[in-house]
């Protein structure tokens, strides 16, 4: 039992490391399909984690895992791909923050997250887990993508990566806090992106482009 927990712990850290790698991939890619793919891979990885953390999985944990894999890993990326095909979006991204600067920013954020984590008080069972630095790094990545990409679909990807980071942090509380909080995350996230998707569609019909830089009529 003890050993099983130890192996799981290492696997969990490995998965979080992979998720961080996907962060950097998402920051550095100049192709929209690649961005969506890395986001969806991250969703699947995140969905596997609760099962690893709770060996005696009850239905609530399984529900979270399934909803995450299905929602973040399959459904949302599928919708984004469909939107991308339907409106013939340019696959090359044009960034506001260049790829090299955003990659460096993301790496700096990741390093800072790892450096800051030891300063935070953590419960003994979380002390050598990468959950906290991984969550911080993912949140930072999401924010960089939100700010640094001009295209609506890419911004949606950034928002989902931001949410992934919050979900990673939420995993710390999966045992102690009611499932309600997590269900709320999934529900609202799905609805939110659904609405975002509709708006993306509308923007397209109105402007014939998904570049949010042309959304500059309203300013001071």
């Amino acid at each position, binding site marked *: 039992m003890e050993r099983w927990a130890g192996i799981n712990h290492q696997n969990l850290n490995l998965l979080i490391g992979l998720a961080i790698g996907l962060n950097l991939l998402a920051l550095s890619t100049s192709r929209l399909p690649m961005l969506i793919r890395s986001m969806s891979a991250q969703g699947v990885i995140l969905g596997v984690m609760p099962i690893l953390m709770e060996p005696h999985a009850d239905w609530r944990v399984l529900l979270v895992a399934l909803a995450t894999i299905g929602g973040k890993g399959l459904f949302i990326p599928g919708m984004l791909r469909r939107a991308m095909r339907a409106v013939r979006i340019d696959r090359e991204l044009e960034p506001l923050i260049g790829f090299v600067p955003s990659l460096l920013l993301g790496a700096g954020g990741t390093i800072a997250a790892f450096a800051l984590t030891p300063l*935070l008080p953590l419960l003994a069972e979380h002390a050598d887990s990468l959950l906290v630095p991984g969550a911080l790094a993912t949140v930072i990545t999401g924010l960089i993508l939100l700010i640094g990409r001009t295209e609506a679909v890419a911004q949606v990807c950034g928002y989902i990566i*931001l949410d992934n980071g919050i979900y990673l942090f939420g995993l*710390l*509380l999966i045992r102690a806090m009611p499932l309600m909080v997590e269900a*709320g995350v999934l529900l*609202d996230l799905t609805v939110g992106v659904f*609405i975002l998707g509709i708006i993306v569609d509308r923007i397209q019909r109105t402007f014939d482009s998904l570049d949010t830089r042309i959304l500059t009529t*309203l300013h*001071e």
Partner: protein
Amino acid sequence: MTSLLLILVPSIAAALAAAWPDSRTRPWFLPGAGVIHCVLAWWLFCAPPTVEAGSWLGFDPLARAVLPVVSLLFLVCACYGVTYLRIRSERPNRIFITALLAVLGLLSAGLQARHLGLLWIFTEAVTLAAVPLLHFNGTPRAFEATWKYLLVGGTGIALSLLGSLCLGYASLYGGGDGQLTFMALMAQGGGLSRPWVLIAWVLLLVGYGTKMGLAPMHTCKPDAYGEAPVMVGAMLAGGVTSVAFTAILRVRAVVGAAGAGGVADHTLLAIGLFSILVAALFLLGTRDFKRMLAYSSVEHMGILTLGAALGRAGVAAALFHVWSNSLTKGALFLSAGNIRRAAGSQTMDAVRGMSVLTPRSAAIFVTGIFAVTACPPFGPFFSELKVLRAALETGHWAITAMFLGCLLLAFFGLSRVAFGIVDGRPHPAAKAGGTRFVETAGVIVPPLVLLALSLWLGLFTPRMVTEAWAAAVTQLYPN
């Protein structure tokens, strides 16, 4: 049980409105639900129920101190909405009315939420429910405003969830048993882990501050208020911001119980003053009178935050200001909507001489501008006076001086735009426009009522209301 009806009645009305076949009679659902909601809210206000300490939802003193005014504001906006939707009968109104009623239900739920996670869910839901409201006009400008609102608002809401989780971890680290009601968190008090509480405070302040529209997270507010139908603007400025403000007050109480109240007050003070300053500067530059109202809202959110930083007296004054600001801002929005409709534009460059074209709305608008810039004897004058007194009593001289300076700048900015559009001769084009806007009772009475309420609140602040604010302060500062 009655407190649940506050949530259920608008929800059922929203469902019925969605199913109602006739779009000409559908708008009557708004005042119908509004009247029932208002009666319920004021009944609960007069006979407050006892709330169990561990309950997740309840009409507690803080909800009692804010909810009635939101309900009142909705009722007046709903009455205006019937006329407005008749004028705009070319737009489909099914989704609009459903979403507006849903917003009312979610606002009632958010104001009564006594659980950290529940509060977040309702705030998120309000954000999403407001999307179709902003989108009502269907113009490219409305799309742009909606997109910005979703992106900025969504990011804010995500950060507040992260903050909620951090607060949860603070409780877990301190040996908590997973109870996330504000009462339980406050009872845990010093047992909460201080670093996590501080992180949670920053994230929650940024997150709910975005919903409130505090600078520098206010960027989507002018666009959203500028492009939405006016009663939506009034509900956003008077209702949604109130929920976010009560959320900040509840979290502030937990942070205070954890022994970090001093830090929290300093950040509130800084962000409040910054908002007032930014709003005052932008008010001097804007030429669009609906966006001007948004900046004015940013300014007043700053005043609320400033009040919340000043201890018991300050919080009581801030709650007073929630009332006076909601009512006055509602009157301004609705009269501005009339002017906008009559003039066909909303910038100073294209609009002038409205005192000739729409004399009644222009009069209400100018009076409202004086009221909102804290001229006596309207509500905002007295509430801001109380904030000032609280600042002076706690010895914040420099802050008082800066606050007054910014108020003066805001007065210049607001009166500049207001008189710019009211004075002078009307544009020939606006005069000769095909269908003239008629100032019927349906569009004049609602803002007039709100203005009268603001005046009444300033001159004869009822004892019962003052007591409700005091009770809310006692809830937030138990010791």
